[in-house]
Structures are given as C-alpha cells and as structure tokens.
C-alpha cells in the first residue's frame, strides 16, 4: 500500500479550478473593464481602481466594514471563549445546555435575519414589549444609524458565537488535565487557572477563531440585505453589500468586480498577517516545556 496515484487529485483540482479559480480570475479581469452585463466588457485599464480609491462611498463602506469586524470580534470572542471553556467540562447538564447553544448554528443566515426582522418590528415585534418594559423610546431600532449597526453586530454574534464556542470547547478539551492538577496543588484558584493555563493553552485556538471571524465578517451579507438593506441611508452599507448594490442593482459589474477583488485581497492579507503576527504558522507546540 503506497500513496494513492497522483491522478486522484484531478477531480478535486478541476472542480476547484472551474468553480473557484476561474470565477476569481474572471472577476479580477472584469475589475479592469466597464461592463453592464449586456454588451461585451470594455477594457478600461485602471479606471475602476482609481475610482475605487477616490470614491467616498467606498471609503465609508470600508470604514464601516472595519468597524463591523472589530465590533464583531470584541463581541464574539469573549463570549465564545467563556462559553467554550465552560462547555468543555464533562458534566451532564453542560452537554445538554451546549446542545441548546448550538441551535443557531443549524439555521440559515436568511432564516436568522428574517427572524430578527420580525423581532425588531417596532409595532408588532418583541422589541416593542421590551422597549416598554425598559422605558426605551420609540423602538426605532432599524431606522436609527447606531442601533441598526448594533443590530447587525448582535445578530451576527447570535449566529456565529455557537460555532466559535465549538472551536473553543474542542481546544479546551485538549488541555492536559495534569496542568490543572498541578496548579491546584500550588493553590491556584479558578480565575488564576483560567488566566495562567487555559488562556495560554488556547493561544492557537484564538488565532484560528479570529481568522475565521475576520474573514467571515468581511463577507457578511445576507443579514445586512434582509435586516437593514444597507440603511438607514447608507449607515450599514458594508463592502459586500456595496458590491451587491453596485453589481446587481446598478448593474455596474466592472466596478462591483473591483470591490470584490479588493475584498478578496483584504481578507487574504488580513488572514496572512494574523497568522504571521501570532506565530501560528511556525507550528510551535502549545505544550512547550511539558
């Protein structure tokens, strides 16, 4: 039994080339064209790219996207980390509760966005009741710039925290029990154990989760489309939504391709930076010194 013949790789490579590489190359090419989807694309060189750099709408969308990535990370990471570590315990009630936590993972983004759209209806949604209980004003959540943005962050978190919890749960279960036993002998409490053992041991898990989170948030789309449609005004028009708006509402497909290419470059660049910066790529063991 040697290695499988190299030809086995062919179907996978062909599939990847046809459905991932080719469209990507095409998008990069289209980003140098003017194309309305009807006539043949007209090569315009760097026109779209110079427009992109000077386009205030683009700047705003890029800023909002960066803000969304930061806010989502800050919201999802602590929550997922704590939940994951908690769920890594082997008690029976935790297993049951963990299963409940993971329900949002099973729903599609579209269903989740529609669900929250109804919850946030100011006259008939749950937000009306909650608003009245807490004495909040007019329940204008989706019509107010700040709260619409926070709603997007929250709904995204609600959807993805379970996934990252799962990653952290797996990571936390890999931590050797002896470390905790030794710490207990040394008289460390639970908080001390968390900061001195759990967190350092989860270093690479944090990197993995963060990379997934950043790339995922950069391509965040359905929630915005359904929940806010980029509004009020353009206050939740993040880059993927701007791309959709430009490509499939304005039918300016060349410029939309430029935005798409820009997104791919940014996401790849950020992911590489994160991996490099955290030393994840060096494959150092987290069990050094053991």
């Amino acid at each position: 039994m040697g290695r499988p013949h190299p030809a086995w790789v062919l179907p996978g490579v062909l599939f990847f080339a046809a459905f991932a590489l080719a469209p990507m190359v095409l998008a990069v090419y289209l980003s140098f064209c003017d194309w309305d989807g009807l006539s043949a694309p007209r090569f315009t060189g760097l026109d779209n790219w110079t427009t992109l750099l000077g386009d205030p709408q683009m700047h705003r969308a890029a800023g909002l996207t960066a803000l969304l990535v930061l806010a989502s990370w800050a919201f999802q990471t602590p929550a997922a980390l704590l939940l994951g570590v908690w769920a890594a315990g082997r008690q029976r009630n935790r297993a049951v509760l963990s299963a409940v936590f993971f329900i949002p993972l099973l729903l599609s983004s579209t269903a989740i966005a529609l669900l929250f759209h109804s919850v946030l209806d100011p006259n008939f949604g749950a937000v009306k009741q909650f608003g009245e209980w807490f004495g909040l004003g007019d329940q204008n959540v989706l019509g107010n710039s700040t709260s619409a943005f926070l709603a997007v962050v929250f709904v995204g978190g609600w959807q993805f925290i379970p996934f990252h919890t799962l990653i952290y749960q797996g990571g936390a279960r890999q931590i050797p029990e002896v470390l905790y036993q030794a710490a207990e002998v040394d008289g460390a409490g639970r908080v001390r154990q968390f900061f001195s053992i759990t967190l350092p041991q989860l270093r690479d898990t944090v990197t993995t989760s963060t990379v997934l989170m950043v790339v995922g948030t950069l391509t965040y789309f359905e929630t915005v489309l359904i929940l806010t449609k980029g509004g009020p005004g353009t206050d939740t028009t993040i880059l993927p939504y701007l791309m959709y708006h430009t490509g499939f509402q304005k039918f300016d497909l060349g410029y939309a391709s430029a935005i798409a290419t820009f997104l791919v470059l940014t996401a790849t660049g950020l992911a590489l930076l994160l991996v490099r910066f955290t030393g994840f790529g060096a494959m150092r063991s987290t069990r050094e010194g053991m």
Partner: protein
Amino acid sequence: MKPGVTHRTYSRRWILGAGAAALTAPGLTACGGGGAGGSDGGELTTYVYGDDAVKVQRSAVKRFNKSADAKVKLEEVPGSDYVAKLRTAMGSPSGPDIFFNWGGGSIRPFQEAGRLTDLTDAVRADPKLKNGFLPSVMKAGELEGRNYGIPMRGMQPVILFYNKSVFDKHSLTPPETWDDLQQIIDTVRGKGITPFALGGVDVWTELMWLEYLVDRIGGEKVFARIQNDEGARWEDPAVLKAAEQVKDLIDGGAFGKNFSSVGYDSGGAPALFAQGKAAMHLMGSWEYPTQLGKHPEFAEKDLGWAVFPTVTGGTGDPRNVVGNPTNYWSVHANVGNKDAAIAFLTEMASDRYAKALIANGDVPATAGAEKLLDSSPSPEFSKFQYKLVQDAPSFTLSWDQALPSDLSAPMLTEINKLFVGQSSPRQFVSAMQGLK
C-alpha cells in the same frame, strides 16, 4: 417599484431575492437554451415573473399552442430572481424570445444594446393592438415614441387608501386638497393615531410620496424632463418643493416616529393600517388584494380608497396618476419566429384574456375592460381603479422603473436619506442632480 401584481411576490423579490440571484446568476444562462439565440422557429421561449398571477399567462399559452403552429414555452422565473436572471440571459447568446418587463427604464438597456424588436409597425398594422389598450398604459411601454411593449397584466396605480371606521369615528371625509389632508393629520394625531402607515424599511414606499407630490406640484413634465435628461432636471423647483413637503410631513409626525423600522414586505405597514393604528396608507392598487388576503374583514368592510389630493399652488393635473401602468411583453431582436410572437401578443388584447385577468382580481389595461368588471371580486374597487387610469391625462411610471438602474439604485438611497433625516431637501436635490 417593481411589483408584479401582489406585494407578496414583490417583497420576496426585494428581500431575499436579489441576494440569491447574485449567487446564482453565473449559472443562469444555461437555463435559457432554445431561446432567441437558436433560430428554432417552432418554439418561442418566454420569461415571465412567476407569482400568483402567472396562471393567467399559463392558460393563455395553452390556448395559443392549441391553435398555432409555433409553440410558446413559458418559463416561470421566481419573482425574486427575475431581474437578475433576465439581465444575465439577455447578456448571453440565449436570451428569451419574449419576456415580461415593466416598460420604461427596465427595457432601455436592452434597446440600447440592440436586443429589442421595435413593435411599432406591428401595432400600427393591427387594430386589435393599436386600439386594444388604454392609451396612457400603452404609452408607458414606449421608448422615444416607438412601441416596445404590449400590456399583459393588471394596472397598478398608486392610490390613497383610508380606514373608513377611523374616518367615521372622527367625522372625517377623504381629503381633496392638501389643506384637507393637513386637517386630517392634525385630527387623528390628536387621537393618538398615526396619520399614514409607511413601511420605510422598503424605500419604494417612500418613493411613492415624491412621485405624487412632484406630479401635483409641477405636473408630469417635471419627471419627464428628468427622464429625458433635459432642462433643470432635479433642480426643478417642484422637486425641492416636494422634498420640503415630505420633510414637513415627517416632522409633523404624519408617519409616526418609527416608520423607518417598519416594513411593507414583512406586513408591518398593512397591519398598522388594518388595525386602525394608522388612518391612511398611500400604496399601489395591490394593497386591496393584500388586505383581502391578510385582513379580509377589514378589506371588505373598512377599506376605503381615494384619489391623491391636489396640492395648493400646484400646476399638475389632479387627475394624473403615478405607479406601474402595467407589465409588458417585449420581443427579443433575435426572435426565431416574429410573426408567431406577434400573434401571441395579440392574444393579450382579447376579451377572453381580459376576463381571465379580472377573475384573478386584476384590472386589465384593455380598452373594453370596463364592461367586464362586474365579474371582478370587488366591482366597486375595480371600477374606481379603471376609471382613475382611464381618465388620467398622464400615468407616470414609478421612477425606479422609468430610470436606468445606474440612476435608480442610488436614487432610492438618496430618498431614504431624506426620509430618515440624513439629508435636507436641498441636499437631496443636489445629491440627485449630482448623480449623473
């Protein structure tokens, strides 16, 4: 506004649709095989917006195929994917021979790309096509005075709906002038009722206000000039006045405080209106079937309708109407069998076809439809609607359909900014003027 006939299909298109379309679009061209690209004269591929009303077209195709040599093949495209799919198919070598559209700007790119058959000669040659439809509706399917569309569905004018029980309770009558309207607003607001339901999450509901106000203040020429890119365009004083009037309405609480979180598609605005929490609703004629479906008791007993009021100092004809005149069939330039296509389109002018539309709750745009309306589910509403359009000197197509998409998409964003208070009427005008 791009509705088919009922708002439900419309909403699906807007909310889910276009998004899914974005993802599936690259693969769509494959579905249009056997269309205009292939010169197969025996079969005509037809794209239609696939909603509840499609059964009328389905039976028309069946009838046609029985007697004609050429066969029409109806492809029902889910409403949510329609615009993106049509656009992609028309950009490929295998576009449909005949396709459903909204006239105006929705077909202009196809005409400019040389993909449309000019139907003017066919219309002139056949009295059934020439005189078979209401002139204002026929006109909205034209580009530069040439016919590119044959009406094929019901009319969809925007109407001022009101809640009769709210009006009765506070001894109000439907407004005829802007001052009447102000008085109604003040009265009902004093009773804690929102004067107008407005589903501001969906910007096209806000667009309707500007369409009517600009028409009443400056007449239909103002938008016609915008559309033809001549004169002062958006800097016409009527546009600024209309925007200011919108701002006054918002500041005066005419739409309540949280209208920008209320959806039309999700049923929020229709429910507010049906429950008497809002007194009036400016909406396309599909509000009637919508309410009939969702709040039947309200629709049958308390739903009232009126013409949009005149505006003090306005020069527009108060009989003018805005909305979607109807939907149209257009023919691809590379149609395999043009004669058969035109024979099929002539079906749309027949009484038989009009009757099928009426039975579906629609009001056809055919010239002789009035005498058939007694068989409608609500003859009173159908007759009001028919007369409204018949008497209208002008029927302005919804701006987002009349303008090309590179203008209409940012226009909707600017309108939303005006409504949520992110830009002033003046900023709105200059942003619109700057769009081109």
